[in-house]
């Protein structure tokens, strides 16, 4: 579904992604973890080309994401990739319902009625049916992130990307967002999640990728990764995590 081959990215002299070779298979849940600054977010943002790469190839659903293409083609491609941001990025001037119906109507040309019916079903699913008319600023962080997930799902993407979806949340709201992600995973959604929630990784992930300094140092089953990590850097990372 998503495959990286020899992907490299530089910010000037800084080598942000180093020879990434990896694949997220259909229906698979991959958790990307690693210390901050290791390139996790950069990696996930290359998938829908919020970040450009300088060499290598990145395929999404059979399409070469970073090949030269027209604006229209790129927008079309992006509309098929669900992306959830750390800071939610709901549109504050639109109601919850408008946030969710916006892209199906504008990008796909779905009728208002159809878009709203779909949005209400999605809000039901993330447990916020009563908030359709609310504005983002009236919602808690956890609620906003659940709306953001619903907004991404409204485009019926074949895969969802999560870029630290719970890092901006107060601890008591992390659970409600993870619950939504867990249910998505159980329904067979292909997911790539950058997260520090190791409990979620252990329970839900099919694969864990451990990154440091722009490289993927280890790809493993969560069970193996957490019980006996191979790479010394991964061992140190897990020890540091347990220390607090």
């Amino acid at each position, binding site marked *: 579904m998503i495959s990286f081959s020899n992907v490299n990215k530089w910010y000037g002299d800084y080598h942000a992604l180093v020879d990434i070779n990896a694949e997220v298979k259909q229906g698979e849940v991959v958790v990307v973890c690693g210390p901050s600054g290791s390139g996790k977010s950069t990696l996930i943002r290359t998938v*829908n080309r*919020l970040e450009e790469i300088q060499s290598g190839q990145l395929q999404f659903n059979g399409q070469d994401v970073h090949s030269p293409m027209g*604006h*229209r083609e790129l*927008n*079309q491609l*992006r*509309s*098929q*990739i669900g*992306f959830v*941001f750390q*800071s*939610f*990025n*709901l*549109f*504050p*001037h639109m109601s919850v319902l408008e946030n969710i119906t*916006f*892209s199906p109507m*504008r*990008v796909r040309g779905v009728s208002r009625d159809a878009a709203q019916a779909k949005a209400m079903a999605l809000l039901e699913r993330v447990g916020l049916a009563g*908030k359709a*008319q*609310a*504005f*983002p*600023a*009236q*919602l*808690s*962080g956890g*609620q*906003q992130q659940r709306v953001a997930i619903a*907004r*991404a799902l409204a*485009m019926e993407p074949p895969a969802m990307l999560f870029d630290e979806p719970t890092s*901006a*949340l*107060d601890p008591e*709201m992390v659970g409600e967002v993870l619950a939504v992600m867990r249910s998505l995973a159980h329904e067979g959604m292909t997911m790539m999640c950058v997260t520090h929630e190791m409990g979620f990784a252990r329970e839900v992930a099919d694969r864990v990728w451990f990154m440091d300094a722009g490289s993927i140092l280890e790809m493993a089953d969560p069970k193996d990764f957490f019980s006996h990590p191979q790479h010394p850097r991964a061992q140190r990372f897990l020890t540091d995590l347990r220390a607090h």
Partner: protein
Amino acid sequence: MNDLIQIVSDNWLLLLVGQYPNGPLGGLACTLILSVLGIALAFPLSVLIALARISRFALLRWPAAALVYAARGIPLLLIILWVYFLVPMLIGSNISGFTTMVVTLVIYEAAFLAEIVRAGIEALPKGQMEAARALGLSYPGAMLYVILPQALYNMLPSMLSQFVSTIKETTLGYVINVHELTFAASQVNNQLLTKPFHVYFILAVIYFIVCWSLTEVTERLERRITTRRQGGGRAQVRSAQAPSLSGARP
């Protein structure tokens, strides 16, 4: 004090509308029409200039920047004189002082409004554009439906202040015989000859009242926008755990 009242009661119509209907519309009416026209025509232009200023194409960025820097660095009076003498040479026929003034104000205010609009756009979190693009929207679509509505709304108070400045700037029309409020007051002064202090005091009071009331409106608007941004506008549906706002929202 009696003199003041006498002058106002003798000349209020002249100060309000000039010699209209026996001559061109002037006085306060002309001042307000000039300001409204200036800002209203400058506004769409300013959005385009702002978009050009942040464009990734140098071909758009440079002329827009040049215009903005020129407007910031050259006194308005000079631009008025330029337009007054240059435009007739270019188009081959004379234009009225009123048209000159409108053209000048549009150019000048568009440059200043453009900087306000640009600031509004750049003050929004980068994630707004990214989220719109990630959903598959084109850059113009994201600008039109996501960025500009927020940026312009947030910048309403600044734009209104710019309108207040514009009202004061119309006084410069006096030098090219535009029959606006200052011109009307000087006509009154020329008739009376002995009461310049009184006449120009009245003039100052009129400007002050207009500008001060607009400033009040601006401040009220600003407070309203602040509360709305914090989600207080619709307190009845506000969630109980909302206070954190999570830092990311403007």
